[in-house]
């Protein structure tokens, strides 16, 4: 396992070396977001704004529209929740190229409980015009995403990271491409679409399914917006069944994005011959609670077993 936050913090320092327009902002969470690494190296380009998230978002827009490359980091609830309107007005509406990198998203926040377990952020950010949304699957991808954002100057972007370390999915040869979904395992019976921690879980689910003679295709949707329609539709055109898995409400997040894509494109467009069943794995219209990250993942069914069961339900609906 490796920490996404640490990968982020280290990548920021590298960006700071490469480009003096990179500036970093946080709201009293320098240590928790690992932006303290940047602060130590480049104190004159680091701004700890105290607990003023609304202020921070609008201020970052002012920096961005003055030619700076601001990276703003705080917990997901305080990035995509509390200052949502400032993100809408000052950042998204103005296409201010602010890079919002939120940590502590999802259930794996753990013991702090529901107040800090942001399960609605993909929804909140995805709905905003001009806003791109990225959810890296592990520390390797996180580092590449942060590097890719150095020159992401046309649009603002929201990146979702977690508190808990995630199992490593990728080796160093992996290349993140903005806007591209990556097929990590080929299959022909069912497509497993996942983001974040659920990418690893889905790969494990595919192994469980293989034992049952089911061939699952696993796709990493690290760019949730803009969604890679081509890859999503062509996979489901081949398999005829889909599962989404995310550490987020099933409403509004990856599950919704894939459902929208399939409803509009299968059948009929892009050569898709038939409607295909979809099962969504995620948090179902509930808040989280205290517990360890592992316990919570288990409790809410975001496990390889949970994903495999959803795949089997989808296959039954397909009439296999």
């Amino acid at each position, binding site marked *: 396992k490796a920490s996404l936050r640490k990968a982020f913090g280290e990548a920021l320092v590298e960006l700071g070396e490469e480009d003096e327009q990179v500036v970093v902002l946080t709201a009293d969470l320098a240590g928790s977001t690992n932006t303290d690494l940047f602060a130590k190296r480049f104190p004159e380009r680091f701004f700890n704004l105290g607990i003023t998230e*609304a*202020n*921070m978002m*609008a*201020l970052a827009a002012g920096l961005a*529209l003055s030619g700076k490359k601001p990276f703003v980091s705080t917990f997901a609830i305080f990035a995509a929740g509390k200052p949502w309107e400032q993100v809408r007005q*000052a950042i998204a509406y103005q296409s201010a190229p602010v890079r919002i990198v939120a940590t502590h998203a999802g259930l794996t926040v753990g013991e702090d409980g529901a107040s800090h377990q942001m399960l609605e952020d993909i929804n909140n950010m995805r709905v905003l015009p001009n806003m791109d949304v990225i959810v890296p699957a592990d520390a390797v991808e996180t580092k590449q995403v942060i590097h890719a954002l150095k020159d992401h100057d046309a649009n603002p972007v929201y990146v979702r990271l977690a508190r808990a370390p995630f199992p490593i999915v990728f080796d160093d040869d992996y290349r993140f491409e903005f806007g591209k979904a990556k097929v990590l395992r080929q299959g022909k019976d069912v497509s497993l679409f996942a983001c974040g921690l659920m990418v690893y879980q889905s790969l494990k689910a595919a192994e469980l399914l293989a034992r049952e003679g089911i061939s699952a295709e696993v796709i990493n949707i690290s760019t949730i917006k803009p969604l890679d329609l081509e890859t999503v539709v062509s996979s489901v055109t081949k398999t005829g069944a889909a599962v989404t898995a995310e550490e987020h409400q099933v409403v509004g997040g990856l599950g919704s994005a894939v459902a929208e894509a399939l409803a509009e494109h299968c059948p009929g467009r892009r050569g898709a011959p038939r409607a295909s069943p979809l099962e969504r794995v995620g948090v179902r219209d509930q808040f989280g609670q205290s517990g360890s990250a592992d316990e919570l993942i288990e409790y809410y069914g975001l496990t390889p077993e949970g994903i495999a069961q959803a795949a089997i339900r989808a296959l039954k609906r397909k009439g296999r």
Partner: protein
Amino acid sequence: MDMDKEIEALKRKAYQLRRDVVEMVYKAQSGHPGGALGMADVLTVLHYKFIRADPRNPAWPDRDRFILSNGHTCPILYAILADKGYFPREELWRLRRLGALLQGHPSTAHKIPGVEFSSGSLGIGLSFACGMALAGKLDKRDYRVFCSISDAECQEGQTWEAALTAHHYKLDNLIAILDRNNCQIDGPTERIMALEPLAEKWRAFGWETFEIDGHDYEQIISAFEAALKVQGKPKIIISHNLLGKGVSFMEGDHRWHHGAPSPEQFEQAMRELEAYGG
């Protein structure tokens, strides 16, 4: 030009701009004339005497920035920008129409030349202005950031977050202008959510605070001159303005926060404004 003549010219300009404001809102049959008319004098002095900018090059990196955080008062800003040649005057008469350049609230998304910030939602602009001021410090550019806020905007918590920030980072390239007209949509500010003692609040937040009669040109000019000299901290000019100034039936009446004049009211308003400044 001696001071009296200069003031006379500025005053005439302010009344010309006021006529544009009334005509814009009349033709659009919606908008916010009250605050715009009240701020006309102080914003005329700011834009015609102090702000360094080039209408032919709105993106000039060293230009002074003007952020209209109380975005609903944009008719006065649009009138100024058109008069200075940022866009054709004809655009004023298409305000608020579908496909028009001039949106109901200032918009950078619609690329209105001279507009620096998309306002409309209150309380956000001062933070944005802090960002621009901070960028100026980082880049060692000597531009100044002027930010207009309304009195009722000081009910927004974010305004005070920005106030803390500007003081913390010693943003002495930031000058706020506070439109103190004591009115908000639902009534007088002190009845809706009391703000006084307002100057004391800004002083307590570490801002160099000036208070002026926003229709007295000598006071306006000397406040800007003094504010521009102060170093090491942000500055605010609390400008006591009369909502609807120049149009008798609008003056001091919070109901003209927004609303369009009837044909008769329009005729009267234009007559009165001509009598003052024509």
